[in-house]
């Protein structure tokens, strides 16, 4: 037998798979919800019964044929699709597919719904539904996409009279079901064919990749989370990278990182894409925040902005920014450095793709959160607080997903420690001085470099965050802090999040940060709580009053 014929044979073995309790109550199958059933099996004799039943339903208008198509594999066979209707209104998902051989029914497969008692006179018109969806999406549909009145079986087991509207937005192909009586949104789902693949990250760890299948290719376009999360592979084209970041170029689907079989092999793309999603999830689960702007701003990652093999000839500015750095470019766009090719070193270390460190990815995305909240001015003390907040979120995301420890892919208070070989870090929150950063306000950098030491003085707030959780003694002041403990780290995270996103002004100082976090501690956990005490001791220990 030709292999292609096997499924056909198999389908013939099951002569009919039908639904609806009201038609064949003796053979209900896989009931879900109340008042309706789905999937009923019937043997050969039952197929003939169903055949007659279908004819009756067609006659009385409960089924309407969508047409018949000839079987392209088996001569003489044909397939007819029949839609279920309730008082002239189509029932969403109610459909039978009848296969015939020379006019004789061979199988009937499908699902019908029972117990529908809806009044099908809508209060709203289709134009009202279109306007409601336009309000939600900012997209108006044309006349050939007019909302369709439809009976929607709900997850609760009932039915709703709705208008169905399919809208292509910037980041989704969404289907809306608007209540034809109240105008409320009954259901929305994405029509994008999203799928989960797997891929190896920069550190050879396997992770899941939320992708979209288009034209036979899997794209790094996450349609499963509320915002669109895209990862573009610019294939080392620095000019295009810069043009895109500067708003001079629009990227399209062909620029998305792609994979033929959904087993992704580009570690830079895998980690950038996965970690962006993880960071979104952290913000949502921990703070109920919906993305960078709390309005599900699309998140865009750029990988391979330059060619690795060009590193030796790259200007130092390009080397520092596009090879050995990562940055938030505004508007939800992150650019991840390419690192160095195998064997090449800088500062005695090999450098991996910058998207390979979860804390780095979350750090950059946290700049986006700051952009849309306190918008801390990126210089001097407010700039240091801006950096500190990103370090705090980066580290917190690590602890949210990874086991605490000191190895690779483990959560710690180091920043970027997974990016280099041998392992190094950019900063330490537990001991800022170990990386040349101040752990006490008295040691702060007061020069003009680095925008007034934003990447150095961040160590002061970073250390306060660390002490408030873990406790300990500040090496400069000698003051001891009783932390809330690692098990309660979420409390300190919430305090810093509240203070830095809702209470601080753009030109905040360390002193304001102390006041804001103490206020947040009192707001969230009450005056005199262990959280407030820990925060107070921590800021005092780092010399901020």
């Amino acid at each position, binding site marked *: 037998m030709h292999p292609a014929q096997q499924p056909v044979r198999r389908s013939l073995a099951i002569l009919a798979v039908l639904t609806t309790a009201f038609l064949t109550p003796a053979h209900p199958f896989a009931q*879900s919800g109340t008042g309706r059933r789905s999937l009923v099996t019937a043997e050969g004799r039952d197929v003939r019964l169903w055949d007659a039943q279908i004819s009756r339903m067609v006659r009385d208008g409960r089924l309407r044929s969508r047409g018949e198509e000839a079987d392209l594999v088996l001569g003489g066979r044909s397939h007819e699709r029949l839609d279920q209707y309730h008082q002239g209104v189509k029932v969403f998902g109610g459909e039978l597919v009848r296969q015939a051989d020379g006019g004789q029914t061979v199988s009937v497969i499908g699902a019908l719904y029972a117990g529908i008692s809806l009044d099908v006179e809508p209060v709203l018109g289709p134009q009202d539904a279109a306007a409601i969806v336009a309000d939600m999406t900012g997209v108006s549909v044309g006349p050939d996409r007019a909302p369709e009145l439809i009976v929607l079986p709900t*997850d609760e087991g009932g039915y709703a009279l709705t208008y169905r509207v399919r809208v292509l937005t910037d980041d989704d192909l969404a289907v809306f079901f608007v209540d034809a009586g109240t105008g409320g949104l009954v259901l929305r789902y994405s029509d994008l064919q999203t799928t989960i693949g797997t891929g190896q990250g920069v550190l050879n760890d396997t992770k899941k990749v939320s992708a979209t299948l288009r034209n036979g290719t899997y794209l790094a376009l996450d349609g499963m989370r509320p915002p669109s999360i895209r990862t573009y592979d610019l294939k080392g084209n620095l000019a295009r990278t810069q043009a895109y970041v500067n708003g001079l170029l629009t990227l399209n689907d062909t620029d998305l990182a792609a994979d033929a079989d959904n087993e992704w092999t580009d570690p830079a793309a895998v980690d950038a894409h*996965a970690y962006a999603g993880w960071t979104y999830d952290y913000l949502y689960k921990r703070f109920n925040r919906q993305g960078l702007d709390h309005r599900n701003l699309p998140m865009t990652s750029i990988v391979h902005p330059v060619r690795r093999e060009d590193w030796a000839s790259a200007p130092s500015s390009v080397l520092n920014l596009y090879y050995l750095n990562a940055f938030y470019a505004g508007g939800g766009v992150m650019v991840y450095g390419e690192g160095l090719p195998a064997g090449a070193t800088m500062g005695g270390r090999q450098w991996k793709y910058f998207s390979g460190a979860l804390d780095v990815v979350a750090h950059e995305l946290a700049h986006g959160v700051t952009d849309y909240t306190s918008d801390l001015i990126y210089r001097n003390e407010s700039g240091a607080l801006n950096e500190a907040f990103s370090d705090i979120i980066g580290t917190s995301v690590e602890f949210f997903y990874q086991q605490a420890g000191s190895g690779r892919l483990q959560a710690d208070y180091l920043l970027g420690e997974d990016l280099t070989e041998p392992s190094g870090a950019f900063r330490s929150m537990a001991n800022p001085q170990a990386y040349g950063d101040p752990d006490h306000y008295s040691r702060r950098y007061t020069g003009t470099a680095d925008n007034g030491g934003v990447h150095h003085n961040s160590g002061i707030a970073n250390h306060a965050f660390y002490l408030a959780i873990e406790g300990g003694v500040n090496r400069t002041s000698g003051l001891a802090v009783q932390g809330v403990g690692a098990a309660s780290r979420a409390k300190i995270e919430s305090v810093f999040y509240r203070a830095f996103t809702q209470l601080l002004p753009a030109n905040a100082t360390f002193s304001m940060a102390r006041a804001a976090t103490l206020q947040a501690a009192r707001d969230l956990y009450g005056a005199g709580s262990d959280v407030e005490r820990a925060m107070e001791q921590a800021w005092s220990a780092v010399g901020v009053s």
Partner: protein
Amino acid sequence: MIAAVLALASALAASPTLAQSLDGQPARQQPPQAAKPAAQPDGKQAAPRTQPAGAKAPPARKAAPPQTSKAWKGRGFAVVSVGAQLAAPGYTSTADFTVHAEDATLNADATIGIGPAFGARGGVRVWKNLAVGGGLAVVSTSQELAITGRLPHPFQFNRYREVSGTADGLARTETLVAFEVSWLVALARRVDMFVFAGPAYINVRQDMATRIQFNESFPYDTATFTGVETASVSGGGVGATGGIDVSYLVTKRLGIGGELRYSYAPATLTPSTQPASVGLGGLQAAFGARILF
């Protein structure tokens, strides 16, 4: 139904006025034992007993109750019945399937419902009341599944959502073919009982759960069970069957009766990747026509 069959049998057997008609002939009145030596089963006449001199003659005995060991002189029997399977062993099955690029698991605990049964038996007498023959039974039932499952999270490995639910109305059809040895016991006039047993092969075609249908939405930390996908699976196993069949002869050769049968055979079915041990058979009760020939 079972109670009705047993009540009928016991009521008829308890009646001392009813004689047997194993050979299809009207029973004759048994003479008192003292008047004539009883006939032995082999046809020889037993020696007459003597009473000691002066001893009182024992009171005349009433007619002996019907003897169940009375010889069956027919050539065989045939039975067709319609009834129901009243109880059947459940089973558990598991299935692995892929969700979000990771293995998901389904555990199904099946309960078999009551369903119609159709049967036929027949046999040829080979020795005294012993007959050998065969039996056929077809049972159509439905199953209810209690489903539990673990569904992987879409974004993280080794983070599962537990779901549970039920799916009912899954089809199941069993066909039993048995070699049966039957022993005829006369219970009363016109009332016979076959006790039968033998090896059996039971074939089954049934729907088995292969995949959980569910709803999920961001942040995907939970999932909601909505149903199951199934596969129609067939298989069979060798086991045993046995039961009793009580019949009432309306005419010399035709009767009506009821039957209780219990059958069991183990089988291994593989709906997807994991084989499941399934017990086939169960307790059936049926009524129908009987033919003696």
